[in-house]
């Protein structure tokens, strides 16, 4: 039977030479036409999760409608074909990050699982009581709790790099924390609350000068400008697919081949073994060693479609558009009396956290939601940072390639209602 598979013929049109056209981009995202409480949706919660372009939705639907089977095990046509597509997706991800090889890309469930994988595999094998892990004050819980679990299990010590009041990562203080017992640096590449882009290259350089490997949590950073893991020379890089316009339940752990090769399996099961007897089991090479069980096949293809999509527009141009929105929003919100912006670091991605005097972030979130404006309100899974900022919660607007200045205006108008109510 001669099967033609539509998805393989799909080509995302290259728009990099066209002008940046936000209306055309918006038309690619079906949900953006939706109304909330009879108001046009203004989606500014992209830091929590981004909306999905039709290219991703179609790619996933087409796999399930016409190409689906399990992978890595069937000799039949569909299984072989989908195995190829899954591995192609891995290659797309590898190229996007500029990994040395697709074998350095481990597919996980999300960034949280990627970090847990490093803690459970590398951490358990190579760390002992008294060894130090350096994190920063602005980590997401996902880059705190796995290390605390290791602390409870092995007695490792967690050291915390401070930030200044603007939210800048303090390199000098960081360098002073690197000592003879430091075994790992695990910091964010961009803060999900403050937007701060950390000086990743410098962080890696200073750690490597002392022989210390570095893990970066790239969940936010990769969305707003991409990443070049070889340029950074970073050892581990974790990110999640759903913030990058891809589906949920897929994440990535990049690891340098030499490091992954020394790491024991994280979970046991099918697909990760070379040979199993009841006496002894041998494991496959990375990345398969770390992908026990049926992986997120459809989601991997969806993430590859998302990557194709953002690259067809151009990461640089997306970043430039978002920076324009960030500047505009910072200026407009700055005009609101009693509104305080958190995070004014020198280098920021398009995330704007704020608090209104005398009004809790939840009340802000509820009131502007009624105007169709979606923001995040709460501690953003970064309670230690909230403690540092001295607030229980903030409201956070986070921008994506499809947002517009008019949407910033809608946010400002909705915040006017907050003032009206709370007077």
């Amino acid at each position, binding site marked *: 039977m001669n099967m033609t598979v539509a998805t393989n013929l799909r080509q995302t049109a290259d728009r990099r030479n066209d002008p940046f056209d936000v209306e055309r981009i918006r038309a690619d995202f079906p949900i953006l036409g939706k109304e909330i409480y009879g108001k046009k949706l203004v989606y500014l919660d992209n830091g929590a999760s981004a909306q999905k372009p039709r290219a991703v939705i179609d790619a996933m639907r087409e796999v399930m409608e016409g190409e689906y089977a399990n992978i890595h095990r069937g000799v039949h046509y569909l299984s072989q074909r989908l195995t190829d597509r899954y591995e192609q997706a891995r290659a797309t991800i590898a190229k996007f990050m500029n990994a040395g090889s697709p074998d350095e890309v481990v597919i996980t469930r999300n960034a949280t699982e990627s970090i847990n994988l490093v803690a459970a595999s590398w951490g358990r094998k190579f760390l002992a009581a008294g060894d130090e892990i350096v994190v920063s004050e602005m980590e997401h819980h996902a880059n705190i709790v796995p290390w605390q679990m290791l602390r409870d299990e092995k007695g490792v010590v967690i050291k915390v790099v401070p930030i200044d009041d603007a939210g800048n990562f303090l390199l000098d203080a960081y360098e002073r924390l690197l000592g003879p017992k430091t075994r790992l640096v695990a910091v964010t590449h961009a803060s999900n609350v403050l937007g701060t882009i950390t000086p990743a290259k410098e962080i890696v350089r200073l750690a490597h000068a002392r022989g210390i490997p570095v893990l970066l949590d790239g969940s936010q950073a990769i969305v707003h400008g991409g990443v070049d893991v070889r340029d950074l020379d970073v050892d581990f890089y974790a990110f999640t697919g759903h913030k990058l316009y891809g589906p949920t339940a897929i994440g990535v752990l990049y690891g340098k081949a030499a490091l992954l090769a020394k790491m024991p399996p994280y979970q046991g099961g099918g697909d990760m073994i070379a040979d199993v007897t009841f006496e002894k089991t041998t494991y496959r090479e990375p990345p398969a060693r770390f992908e026990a069980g049926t992986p997120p096949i459809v989601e991997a293809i969806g993430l590859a479609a998302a990557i194709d999509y953002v690259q067809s527009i151009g990461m640089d141009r997306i970043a430039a558009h978002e920076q324009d929105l960030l500047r505009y929003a910072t200026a407009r919100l700055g005009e609101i009396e009693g509104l305080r912006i958190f995070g004014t670091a020198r280098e920021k991605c398009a995330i704007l956290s704020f608090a209104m005097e005398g009004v*809790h972030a939840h009340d802000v979130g509820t009131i502007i939601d009624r105007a169709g404006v979606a923001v995040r309100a709460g501690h953003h899974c970064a309670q230690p940072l909230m403690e540092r900022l001295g607030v229980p919660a903030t409201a956070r607007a986070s921008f994506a390639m499809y947002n517009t200045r008019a949407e910033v205006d809608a946010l400002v108008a909705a915040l006017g209602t907050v003032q009206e109510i709370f007077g």
Partner: protein
Amino acid sequence: MADDLRELYQEVILDHGKRPRNFRHPADANREAHGNNPLCGDRLVVFLKVDDKGVIQDAAFEGRGCAISTASASMMTEMLKGKTAEQAHRLFDAFHRMCTTDSHGDVPADLADDLEKLQVLSGVRQFPMRVKCATLAWHTMNAAMAGQVETSTE
């Protein structure tokens, strides 16, 4: 502005939210529990002074939260004084029903005045994500009466 917003943020709520009553730590409190809403990070502590006969002589709270949770805690402390443990428990039950369902069930005569005042908080029904804000202090009070020290709305 949407009507349901006006209903949620009535003057009484805004007033209690800004100027909470009984916002203090009584030195002679003999019951205390910590309430925590892990979803949003809101925390509060409810202090009670219960006498030998099981009657609440004093009720107060401290902590930080949104207008809804602060107002609810403030109004609760005003109502608890003079109530027996059994009455406090029934008030909690009736208030919880008011925040989550449209039917209030039978309003107990001895609590009718209190429940009428608490009607201002029933606007949260239209905002399912905020029901926990309105009930956090009450869950915490319940825990304090039961002798627990920690409670959570999760």
